[in-house]
């Protein structure tokens, strides 16, 4: 984020906290993709993800006075979205009870259809426990470093690293069995 963009966002946060609806609308527009995608990838349900994303922004509206900077705003949104997703998943038992072994094998090779490979990856990630799943989403959707993920999820750095290691190893194993001819 360059200085001018940061200053503009800073100004928007300040004006939103003072009740400027237009400034808040701009903040929502700027961050809705991040919040909605996190929820959508985690919950695998667009309508539930939209509902959760709306609640995150409602909560932001009520807590604008505590936001100190644009970086803090992004961190706050990621943290609140992550925790709400995990809570929602635990409450509604959304995580599929099927085991990794039960995930359907693709009928076509990756070279034939990249979309199919992406869907396969999402389905395998979906079988991970809640925190491990969120670690993968923050790592690959938000491109966060393990230290940043540890801060967002309030967990030790080594736990984040071991989640990532285990998840990648499992994904590699699953996909190499499925797409044996492709080097991952």
């Amino acid at each position, binding site marked *: 984020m360059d200085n001018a963009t940061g200053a503009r966002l800073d100004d928007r946060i300040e004006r939103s906290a003072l009740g400027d609806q237009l400034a808040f609308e701009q903040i929502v527009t700027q961050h809705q*993709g991040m919040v909605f995608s996190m929820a959508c*990838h985690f919950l695998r349900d667009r309508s539930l993800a939209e509902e959760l994303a709306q609640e995150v922004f*409602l909560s932001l509206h009520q807590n604008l006075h505590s936001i100190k900077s644009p970086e803090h705003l992004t961190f706050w949104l990621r943290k609140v979205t992550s925790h709400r997703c995990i809570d929602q998943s635990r409450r509604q038992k959304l995580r599929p009870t099927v085991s990794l072994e039960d995930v359907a094998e693709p009928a076509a090779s990756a070279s034939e259809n990249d979309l199919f490979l992406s869907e396969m*990856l*999402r389905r395998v990630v979906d079988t991970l426990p809640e925190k491990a799943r969120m670690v*993968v989403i923050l790592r*690959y959707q938000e491109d966060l470093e393990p230290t940043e993920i540890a801060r967002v999820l309030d967990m030790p750095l080594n736990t984040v690293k071991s989640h990532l290691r285990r998840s990648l190893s499992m994904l590699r194993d699953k996909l190499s069995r499925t797409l044996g001819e492709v080097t991952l």
Partner: protein
Amino acid sequence: MSRLDDELRNAFKRQQPPADFTARVLERIARQPEPRPSLWQRLAALVEPPKMRWVAIGVTAALLIAIGAAQYSRLANRVVDDTGKLSQAVPTPEEKKAVVKPAEIDVVITPSSPAAIPKKHTLSLKRHQLAAARVEKAPEMKSEAEAAKDKLMLALSIASSTLNDAQKAVHDDGPKP
């Protein structure tokens, strides 16, 4: 960076919510009731400048009234003293000895009348003695009570005018239409 990383980035790239997402968020915010401020927020609001002025005025007025009431109460205590003298708020040891207690009144009265005086008569006699003492010192006490009353009225009028000035100042500071 492995191909798996690239594939994961591709699989988990950001998605956009429906086009009316922002409008729906704003609509929900508009529907929400105003959040009730917490106890701390309400306490913090008290020390904001315009309200702080009212708090200071209130405290000053309360202090003036309390001082006036205390002064009045001290004088009133002197009036009801049993000895009939105008005593201090805290009596000296000699004054304490001179105070006639109800039991002593019984002892004094009983020998002069052979028949036993009922207890209610003894109490009635004590009331008469106190009333007589008050009547004796009435002019002096009355003047002191008047002085105390004047002081209290002055304190109240000062508090009232201060409050009026402050209210006027706050109204002048307020937003102009």
